[in-house]
Structure formats: structure tokens, C-alpha cells
């Protein structure tokens, strides 16, 4: 199974989940109905208003339906809204604190590097990382609704006990959740669970209120009615409490069943990503031998227990995770189930980077020196590097990075000048680097205009800082530029709202300075500014009707065709369309006309991508295959085209690992 199948399966799971919950809710409604009728027929003394238990009471059924659906609906909606979108809401609710991207803590530094590696290897922006400092158990989670707004959290216990390899296994497991679409499912689960839990909570409140009510009243006639009211309140409270917890019981069973399957999948994927079974099994064994196991203290942990790496709340029936022994045995069949006592791991400076790629990192500690040669850059602008492999392979690797991708990511990280590497990890430097990356190369007349813009609009210190970083960014290989920009996300996330606004405005001005967008600007716009803004505002709804989809598809395909070649654009377009038609099983004769070159602006492309992102994953795969066939039509693919394919893929919510065969960075 591949990325697209997993994504669709996660969606189908969500569908069944909702069906199960509907059934649970209907059962609850019926029980509430009988509960009220029972109270009405027993507790009410007044014969006139007493109910007959055996007679059907449509009014009461209506009332209980209204009550239950309103409670569950509102409760779920509230919780889902609270948690959806940005993953940081979940992380904060669980007691996490964001790790400062430039942290001085050795353990945190190692963690951030492992996350960065994995993000670049899988083609997602680097997620902000949270640490739950009060939690001593070994555990971790991923939250957010898409790779775009994901965050990763680990417990302090996790950092203290795991070696670098084991930590990498755990992080790979979490990335699998991100890449397999489990997080959206997780949020739905928490939401529905919360709605049902709310009934129990209300029952509990009623109970408390009734117990504080005065039993006697000065007015004698009144006192009888008041007593009846209190009794009714008590009884209703007790019944709601019972129903609520029964509902939670069933919901918990569903939660556990859905979750356990996804855990096996994530374990298997972690091995696939890292090609290192001992990492993840080692981490699981450490949990087994640790006195705190993977337990969590946070109150919210119960609702969110299915999101974690290991069992966070002790329970046999509701285990959201398969037993440790079984998880280990699936990966390492000879395991007998004896756990050694876990001790604190001792990290050293050498662990910060992956020991396997130490060779690449050596010059990292060399003194910073602004590189002068711009030949690499010139080649990049010309954008004529060939690469051998078929982009179809790249489509197949979506959501499935392998160890070569991790090595590649490590190499990219290692080749980034240490100065930039340091600056990208804090908000001030990250802003400066993004500005510097947006400045046109020396040969371009726009450069001066852009430098003026920075000088006028950025605060004084920031403008100066940007200028001092320019020599470094100018000499970057194009392959390094996007990964570097993607590393800025956690630091930019720390910007205050006014700063975010100012950053966005200036970045936009720099992009628009030459009245046209380059592919890099487009990519940056999609990856960074959109993302930084998106995290802090509501996602917008897009109209994704079949007609709109096919129009947008034609728009993107035409853009790619024009980008690839001037002469054969229409043939490249037709090649892409044929692939798409085959995938969708439609007649290729129905091909919409290719758009003119002038109609293919990046702004139009931007809008079209927002629409395509709403398609289902089977369709997305056909889109991406069509795009890559269009690109390879002329038998050569430039790094520009490949980068654009990756950006498109990312915009569709399908993170594509870097393409490995583009000429390596000269060293």
C-alpha cells in the first residue's frame, strides 16, 4: 500500500467511525427517553402530570433527541474546532512548551536535528517541536490536521532515556502518522468522545446542584413541589451520568480498535523510513524497562491517548496501543519479552548530528567565511541540470521517504553554511534569511529595488542583518534554498502577530518587486508565508465541484507544459492529459483546450492548486502522475520543473521527498 491508499483508508476509517458514533448516539437518545419517562412515572406525585411508562410519549422523545444531539453535537463541534487546524493547540493542552529552535539544551538540540532531518527527507516543512517537561514517561505524539500545520511533541522522559537512533525511530513513527493522515482522524475521535463525555459531565453537574438545593421552603405548598424538583434533578443527574459513561465506554472501545491498527502501520513505516529496525524496537524496549513506562500525567491525556507513541493511560480493555511485546515481535520475531532496566542515556555533542553522515558535517565547525563563488548559482539560474530518474518514482515516494532520503537530507543540512544554519533557528535571523533568499541574484536589475525596499521597510537592525547574510544566501545551491526556507517555520512560528504582519507585507513586496513571480518565490510563498499565515487564521473553504476541478487541472497542466518547452508545449500537455485520462478511466478525446501562455500566471496557478487540494487522494495521484509525465515529455527535466512538481505536490497535501538524482552539490 502506498501513501494515497493509506490516506483514502484513513478517510474511510473516519467515515465508519462516524457511523459507529451515530449508532452510539441513537442508543443514548433511546436510553435518555426511557430514563425521563421512568422518572416522570415514578418520582412525580401529582397524578395530573404523572407519566404512563407504557405509553409512547412523542414529546419526550423529541425533547431527548434534541437534548442529546445538541449536547453531543455542540460538545464535539467545540472540541473539534478547538483542536483542528493548528496542532499547537493540542500540544499546549497537553502541557507542552515549544522548544526554542536555537535551544542550548543538548537533548533538545538532538531532538530538533532528528526532526529536521526527517522533515527534509519526507518533503514536509519542519514542524515546530514541543516538549512536555513534566512528563517522565517515554512517549511522543504528532498533532495537526495536515502536514502543513503539524507539530511534534515528546516527553522529557523520552529525551532522557533514548539514544539518537531510538529517538529517530520514534520520530519516524510520528511522521508516519502525519503522512498517513491519522491526525485528522485523531481529532475527529477526540471531538466525538468529548461530546459524549459532556453528557456525563452535565449529569455530574446536576448531581452537584441538586445536592446543594435547600430541601425545605418557608411556603408549605411550595416545599412539596421543590422536593419533587430536587428528586427529579437527582434522578436525571444520575441517569445522565450513567448514560454518559456507558456512551464513553463504547466510544472508548471504538477509539481503541481504530487506533491499534494505525499503530502497527506506523511502526512498520518507521522501519521503512529509517531502514533501521533496532531504533524503534530499542525505543519500545526502553519503555518496557522504564519504571514510568509510557504513562502520562496530563488530565487531557485520556481523551488524546490514541495520539501517542505508547500507551499513555493504563487500561486493558481500552488499550489504544497493542501490547509492547506484540509490537516488538512484529518487527523482531525472536523477541522473548524480557525487558532490561532502562537507565538515563548519556548524550554527547557528537550525537547532535547523525553519526552515519559525520563526514558531511566536518566543515560545519570550520570558521564561518562568506563564500564568494557564484558559479553554482549561475548554473542554477540557468536551471538546465538534467536528471536521470523518472519523476514517476518521485510520485511513488510520496509519504514514503527512505534512508537514502534521510542521508540526502543530512547532506543538505551539512552543506548549509553554519552561519545560516544558526540564524535560521531564531525569529530575527529567520526573517532576515527569508528576505535575503527573496532578493534577486546580482545580475538582476530588480536586486537594487529590493534592497531599497528592505532598507525602507524593515527595522534598522533587521535590514542590516539581512545585508550581512546576503553573501551567504547568494552562494547557496538551488537545492538548498527550499529546505533552508522550510527550516524557518518553527522560528517564524514564534513571531508575535504584529511582527508576522510586517514580515508578510515585506516578503510580499519583495516577491512583487519585479512584477513577476519566479518559481522559487512561488514555492516560498506557498511554503512559508501561506503557512505562517494559515496557522494563525481559519482555513478557507474551497469550491471543489467536478467542473472546477477539471478547470484547475487544465490550468496547472498548461503551466507545466509552457514551463517545460516553448515548441512542444501542446504535445507535453496532451501527454499529461492522456495519463490523467487513463488513470481516471475517461475518454482522452474529452481533453480541454490548453491555456495560452499568457493565461498561465503563477497567481492563477496558486488559486488552481487551492482547488485541487480538495480532491480525493485517488484523483490526486492521477493529477501528479499526469504532471510528471508532462514534465518528462521533452526527455529532460530541469531542477526548476522538479522543484515546481514538489511544490505542487506539497500544495495538494502530498509531501514529496527530494528527488535524489539531481546533480549533487559540488564540494
Amino acid at each position, binding site marked *: 500500500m502506498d501513501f494515497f491508499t493509506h490516506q483514502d483508508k484513513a478517510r474511510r476509517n473516519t467515515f465508519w467511525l462516524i457511523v459507529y458514533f451515530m449508532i452510539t448516539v441513537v442508543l443514548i437518545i433511546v436510553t435518555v427517553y426511557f430514563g*425521563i419517562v421512568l422518572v416522570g412515572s415514578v418520582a*412525580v406525585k401529582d397524578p395530573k402530570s404523572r407519566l404512563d411508562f407504557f405509553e409512547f410519549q412523542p414529546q419526550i422523545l423529541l425533547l431527548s433527541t434534541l437534548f442529546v444531539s445538541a449536547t453531543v453535537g455542540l460538545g464535539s463541534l467545540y472540541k473539534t474546532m478547538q483542536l483542528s487546524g493548528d496542532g499547537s493547540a493540542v500540544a499546549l493542552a497537553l502541557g507542552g512548551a515549544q522548544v526554542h529552535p536555537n535551544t542550548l539544551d543538548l537533548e533538545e538540540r538532538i531532538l530538533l536535528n532528528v526532526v529536521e532531518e526527517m522533515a527534509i527527507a519526507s518533503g514536509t516543512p519542519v514542524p515546530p517541536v514541543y516538549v512536555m517537561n513534566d512528563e517522565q514517561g517515554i512517549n511522543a505524539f504528532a498533532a495537526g490536521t495536515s502536514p502543513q500545520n503539524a507539530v511534534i511533541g515528546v516527553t522529557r522522559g523520552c529525551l532522557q532515556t533514548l539514544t539518537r537512533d531510538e529517538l529517530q525511530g520514534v520520530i519516524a513513527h510520528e511522521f508516519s502518522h502525519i503522512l498517513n493522515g491519522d491526525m485528522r482522524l485523531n481529532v475527529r475521535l477526540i471531538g466525538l468522545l468529548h461530546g459524549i463525555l459532556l453528557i456525563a459531565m*452535565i449529569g455530574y453537574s446536576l448531581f452537584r446542584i441538586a445536592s446543594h438545593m435547600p430541601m425545605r421552603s418557608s411556603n408549605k405548598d411550595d416545599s412539596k413541589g421543590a422536593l419533587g424538583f430536587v428528586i427529579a434533578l437527582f434522578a436525571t443527574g444520575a441517569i445522565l451520568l450513567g448514560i454518559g459513561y456507558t456512551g464513553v465506554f463504547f466510544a472508548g472501545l471504538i477509539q481503541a480498535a481504530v487506533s491499534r491498527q494505525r499503530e502497527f502501520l506506523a511502526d512498520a513505516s518507521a522501519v521503512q523510513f529509517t531502514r533501521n529496525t533496532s531504533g524503534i524496537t530499542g525505543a519500545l524496549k526502553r519503555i518496557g524497562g522504564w519504571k514510568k513506562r509510557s504513562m502520562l500525567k496530563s488530565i487531557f491525556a485520556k481523551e488524546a491517548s490514541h495520539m501517542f507513541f505508547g500507551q499513555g493511560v493504563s487500561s486493558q480493555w481500552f488499550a489504544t496501543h497493542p501490547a509492547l511485546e506484540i509490537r516488538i515481535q512484529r518487527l523482531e520475531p525472536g523477541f522473548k519479552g524480557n525487558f532490561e532496566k532502562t537507565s538515563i542515556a548519556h548524550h554527547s555533542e557528537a550525537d547532535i548530528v547523525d553519526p552515519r553522515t559525520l563526514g558531511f558535517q566536518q566543515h560545519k565547525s570550520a570558521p564561518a567565511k562568506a563564500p564568494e563563488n557564484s558559479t553554482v548559482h549561475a548554473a542554477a539560474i540557468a536551471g538546465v541540470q538534467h536528471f536521470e530518474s523518472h519523476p514517476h518514482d518521485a510520485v511513488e515516494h510520496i509519504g514514503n521517504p527512505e534512508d537514502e532520503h534521510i542521508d540526502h537530507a543530512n547532506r543538505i543540512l551539512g552543506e548549509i553554511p553554519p552561519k545560516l544554519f544558526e540564524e535560521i533557528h*531564531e525569529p530575527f535571523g529567520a526573517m532576515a534569511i527569508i528576505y535575503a533568499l527573496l532578493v534577486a541574484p546580482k545580475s538582476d536589475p530588480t536586486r537594487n529595488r529590493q534592497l531599497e525596499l528592505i532598507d525602507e521597510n524593515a527595522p534598522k537592525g533587521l535590514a542590516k542583518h539581512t545585508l550581512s547574510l546576503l553573501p551567504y544566501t547568494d552562494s547557496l545551491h538551488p537545492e538548498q534554498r527550499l529546505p533552508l526556507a522550510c527550516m524557518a517555520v518553527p522560528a517564524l512560528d514564534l513571531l508575535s502577530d504584529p*511582527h508576522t504582519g510586517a514580515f508578510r507585507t515585506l516578503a510580499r513586496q519583495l516577491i512583487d518587486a519585479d512584477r513577476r513571480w519566479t518559481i522559487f518565490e512561488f514555492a516560498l510563498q506557498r511554503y512559508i508565508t501561506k503557512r505562517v499565515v494559515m496557522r494563525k487564521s481559519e482555513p478557507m473553504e474551497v469550491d471543489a465541484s467536478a467542473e472546477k476541478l477539471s478547470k484547475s487541472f487544465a490550468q496547472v497542466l498548461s503551466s507545466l507544459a509552457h514551463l517545460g518547452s516553448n515548441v512542444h508545449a501542446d504535445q507535453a500537455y496532451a501527454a499529461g492529459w492522456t495519463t490523467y485520462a487513463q488513470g481516471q478511466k475517461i475518454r482522452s478525446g474529452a481533453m480541454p483546450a490548453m491555456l495560452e501562455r499568457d493565461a498561465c500566471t503563477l497567481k492563477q496557478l496558486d488559486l488552481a492548486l487551492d482547488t485541487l487540494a480538495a480532491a480525493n487522494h485517488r484523483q490526486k495521484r492521477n493529477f501528479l502522475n499526469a504532471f510528471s509525465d508532462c514534465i518528462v515529455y521533452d526527455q529532460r527535466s530541469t531542477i526548476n520543473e522538479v522543484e515546481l512538481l514538489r511544490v505542487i505536490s506539497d500544495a495538494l497535501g502530498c509531501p514529496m521527498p527530494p528527488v535524489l538524482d539531481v546533480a549533487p552539490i559540488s564540494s
Partner: protein
Amino acid sequence: MGPIVIGLVVVILMIIGFIGYVISLFNGLVTYRNRFQNAYAQIDVQLKRRYDLIPNLVETAKGYMKHERETLEAVIRARNTAMAAGKQAAENPGDPKAIQNLSVAETALAGSLNRFIGLSEAYPDLKANQNMLALQEELTSTENKISFARQAFNDAVTAYNTAIEVFPGLLVAGFGNFQRAALWELSDPEQKEPVKVSF
């Protein structure tokens, strides 16, 4: 049966609404608090870096500025005081007292650093020292970052303070133990001026 049941349902619905509202208010305040605490972490990283830079700077200058021992010692002293204040503020960025102490200590440090740099201008050999130049450059850049991070911190604190002072938040803040946090203002405007050097 009518009135009792309807009354009950109305009461219950009101309770649900109320509980939901209070919870969301409370969560909102927690988020604001977490934001400014995260914003403090930014300052903290830069402060620490500066505290590390200063001894190097003084060490480099020592060889040249033999007659300015007092100034050099004052710088180190101010740095140590500020570092202790910074440590306390990092433990609880919401404590107004800690932030105030840090602000005072930082202003004093900036003052003595200015004096030191002003004096160092008089030593041409020191001025030309590559190491000294690099350290000074680094110091300036770090100071820029601190002032930027301080602005972000102040923005976040202002948002939090407003949230606990306006009407609905006010009620929740009372029993949730949300206290006003202090802005980090530059306490003594005189000290912001560059120090005049007299010989």
C-alpha cells in the same frame, strides 16, 4: 408533566452553554499565557548568548586596557547580576518583580558596556584587533535580536493583560489565578543615551 420537563431541559441547556463558555474563556487565557512564556524563551536564548560573549570581550581587552581594571570589573559584575536576574525571570516570566529586576539589571549592564566600549575607542591597537571586532559585531547583532525579541514579548504580554482585564475574561481570571504580567520596559531613559567618555 409539561412544565417540569421543559423547565429541566431549559435549565440543562443553559448549564451546557454556560459550562462551554467558561471552559473556552479559560482555555483562551491559558493560550495567551503560554504565548508570552514562549516569547520569553526567545529573549532568554539571546540573553544567555550575550552573557557568554561578555567575558570573552573583557578577556580580549584586558591585555590592552591595563589601566581600566575598574571598568572591566564593573562590566563583569553587571553581567553577573544580570545573569542571576535573567535566571530568575526565566523560571517565571509571569512574575512582574522578576521582569522588573531583570530590566534594571540589564539597563545597568548596557550602561557599563557602553562605558567600556567608549573607553576602548582610545586604544588603537585594541580597535584594530580582529577578535575584538568580531566580538563587537556579534554583540551588536545579539543586542538587535534582544530588542526584537523584547518587542515580541511585550506584544504577547499586552495581549495577555488585556485578555484578563476585559469583561468576561476578568471573571475567569479571578478564580483561575491569572495575574497581570509585567512588560519589559527600558527603565531608565538616561541610560539609553551613549555614555560620554572623559579622560
